Structures are given as structure tokens and as C-alpha cells.
């Protein structure tokens, strides 16, 4: 049971080690001839006029928020799907009610234009 996860743990360590190693390895080899202009952030050859970390559209937040909600809802569905054979009709009704409530919210978001992007 738990031993199933040991390989995963090893893999995480190996993968991270690999990523870090390549960066360190490359940093030992590559050349460094910097100058001020080269280190400027790219903005099509123009000196940046405003700070990049300016404010961005709130729609990104809305998308992320909807994602979190949907994510949680999907998480509830996973165990349901696994044991569906034992629940059958009862389970189906449960989930239809659940999805219906979700769809109400989805419809609201759609109506309010939270899904629009232009």
C-alpha cells in the first residue's frame, strides 16, 4: 500500500535533482558577457516606459475562481465514479442533483458574462 508510493518519492527526488543539476552544470559551462542593455527586459527594442507588474484584467481572477469551484466539484465526482456500480440509480440521482446545482452556477456565470473574454 504505502510501498507503492516509495518509487514516486524517489522519482520526485531524482527529477528535482536532475533539473537542479542541469542548471548548475550549465552555469559552470556557459559564457558570461553581460552588459546593461542586454539585461534589460524585452519590450521590442524600446525602453520600458511603465512597470511590467502593472495591474491586469480581473477576468483572469474570475477564470481562476471558476476553475477552483469546478475543480472541487470534479474532485467530488471521482470517488462517485469509482463506486458507481454499487450506487447505481441512487448514485445517479445524487450526482444529477449535484450537477444540477453546479449547472445553475455555471448558467449564472454565463449570463453575467464571466465567461466572456472580449
Amino acid at each position, binding site marked *: 500500500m504505502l510501498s507503492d508510493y516509495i518509487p514516486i518519492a524517489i522519482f520526485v527526488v531524482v527529477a528535482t535533482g536532475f533539473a537542479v543539476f542541469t542548471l548548475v552544470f550549465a552555469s559552470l559551462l556557459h559564457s558570461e558577457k553581460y552588459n546593461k542593455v542586454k539585461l534589460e527586459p524585452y*519590450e*521590442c*527594442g*524600446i525602453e520600458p*516606459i*511603465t512597470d511590467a507588474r*502593472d*495591474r*491586469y*484584467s*480581473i*477576468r*483572469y481572477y*474570475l477564470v481562476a475562481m471558476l476553475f477552483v469551484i469546478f475543480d472541487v466539484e470534479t474532485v467530488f465526482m471521482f470517488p462517485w465514479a469509482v463506486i458507481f456500480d454499487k450506487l447505481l440509480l441512487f448514485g445517479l440521482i445524487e450526482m444529477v442533483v449535484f450537477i444540477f446545482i453546479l449547472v445553475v452556477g455555471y448558467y449564472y456565470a454565463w449570463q*453575467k*458574462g464571466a465567461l*466572456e*473574454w*472580449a
Partner: protein
Amino acid sequence: METPAVHHGAMFDTNELVINMGPQHPSTHGVLRVVLRLDGEKVVDADVVIGYLHRGIEKLSENRNWTQIILLTDRMDYVAAATNNVGYCETVEKLMSIEVPRRARYVRTILCELQRIASHCLWVGTHAMDIGAMTVFLYAFRERELILDLFEEFCGARLTYNSMRIGGLPLDIPPGWDKKVLEFCMIMGSKVDEYEELLTHNRIWLERTKGIGIISGPDAVALGLSGPPLRGSGVPRDIRKDEPYAAYDEMAFDVPVGSAGDTYDRYLVRMEEFRQSLRIIRQATEGIPEGPIVGKVPRLIKPPAGETYHAIESPKGELGYFIVSDGKSTNPYRFRVRPPSFCNLQGLRALIRGHLVADVVALIGSLDVVLGEVDR
């Protein structure tokens, strides 16, 4: 002016972000700089900044003799150099009232139309590339290569041809060249279908171009647009038909016009122009008359005092030359070009307002500007 549709988005926060697109940007077709004011991804307003490729061709021309200027005009619209040469030479011929022999006019027509196809090839490739279809780009360049080969055989150069002389042509067409041109017409016809197959009915392409950057006919006229952007809006203005030059009065061809005035219509107009150009080239090549290639031109070109304006239909639109001669010196007193790209670029700000960042590149592409011509 067309106001962009107001979406639900207007309810949400509007924080503007100023971002420079260009001069060093992969898809501003050169060194165009567009300063975008964005709300999220939507363009609230834009400033078009030009001048990064200014070489002072107009001023330089005042210190060159009349023949040397042909060489300078090559460098304006560098993807359609022959057209520039024709426009300039015809203006001077008009100023000096020189009769150009028919054979020379036919060859000029062929060169102009080959050039139009080459320019449109470059346009369709880059325009498709802007919208993310990378394959069309290489297909179009493959065919453009054939045209460049033809030009190379004709005048030895592949980009800046210097292929005209005042009063006619510098040299006659090489033997067998006309056959090769006809052969090219055969190949090109099917290749245009190939491009259309990849794009015209592609749903993503339709979604990306239909209804994007709509400009009505009267608006397009008011903004001074010309060429395909004007015809895409339904105005059937084509100098080849309206004020024929070279041998266009002897050619049968149609002027395609759009209806909606959106990016897709401009695309369709140009695609149809491919076919019409091929039609013209075929007629001209088959009916090419015998005769001299240069008219009666004095040894020292010195037009009489006066001024004239002459325009031709370049691949991009109305290419006009305004030349003043003082009648005393061997160079023009004033030399002024009305480049189609420059005037078409006027429309950009009106077009992109209210659209998304991704549409900006599509719209720059649909205007088909060449910065060498804009900045001169």
C-alpha cells in the same frame, strides 16, 4: 467610424496596460511600432509610430539625376521593386511626353503582374503566419522563388531590379523567357488553389478573419485607403481599369471587390487578384508584339519645367509620384511619393481599436504594409 461591439466585459474592471508592439517584433512586418493601450487583452487605443526605416529617398532624389532615381525607387517597396520602377518611369515619361513602344509596355505589364504575384505571395505567407498557419508561408515562398528566378533571368537581380529605363526597358527579354513565364502561370494556378485549400474554408481561419477590422466603403475612402484594403470594402477602384497605364487597356481582367470590408474580404480580394494577375500575364505574354524596347529618349534626360502626378496600381494600392522639374538641372526639383502602404497604415488605428492583441497582427497583415515604403 465603426464602433466595436460592446461586450459584457465593459462591466468589469478596466485597468490599462501600455505595451509596445515593435519596432523589434516578429509580426509588425518590419520596424513598425504600435503603442497599444490594453484593457486585459483588448486594445483600447493605439498609436502607430513610424520612421525607423527612414532613409530620405525623397530628399536624396533631388541630388540624383533622373536615371539614378530608378535605383532609389527599388528600395521603397522592396518586395515589388519593378512596380516602383514602372511608376517612376511612367511619371517622368508623362512629364517629358515620351511615347513608350508597345513591346516595352507589354513587358512592363508582365513584370508588374509577376511582381504583384510575388508581393501577394509574401503577403499571404506572412499573413497566414501571423494567424499561426505556418505552412502556407513556406508554400508561398516556394512559388515566390520561381518569380525571383524569372526576374533574375530578365535583369540579373533578385530583389532590387533596377529593371526599367525612362522611355522603355534596359534590355529585351531573354530568348525563351516568355515560355518560362507561361510555364510559371501553369504552376501558379494550382498553387493558389493549394493556399486556398489550407485557408479559405478553414474554420479557425474564418473565425480569426471574419468580422475582424470591418471598415465600410465610405470610411475606407475617407481614410485614403487604396488597393486591396479599399476593394475589400466594396469600392471597385483599380487604377489599372480606371486610368490604364502600360498595356492594361488591352488586357481583359476583372477587379475583385469584397462586401463586408473585413479581414476575410481583404484576403479573398487578394486571392482573386492572384488569378486575375495570372490571366493578365498569360494574355500579355502570348500577345507580346515585336518592336523596339525603348522610345525616343534624348541622351540627356532633362524634362521641361513643370510638375506632374502619376499613379499606378502597385500590389499594395495606389503608388503615386509627384515630380517637379525646374527644367534647368538634371535632377528633379522636388520628388514626392505617395506610397500605398503609408496611406493604408492610416487605417490601422481605426481598425484595431476594440479588437484583441491577436487581431492586431492579423490586421497589420491584412493591410499588407511594407515599412520600406512607409518610411522611404
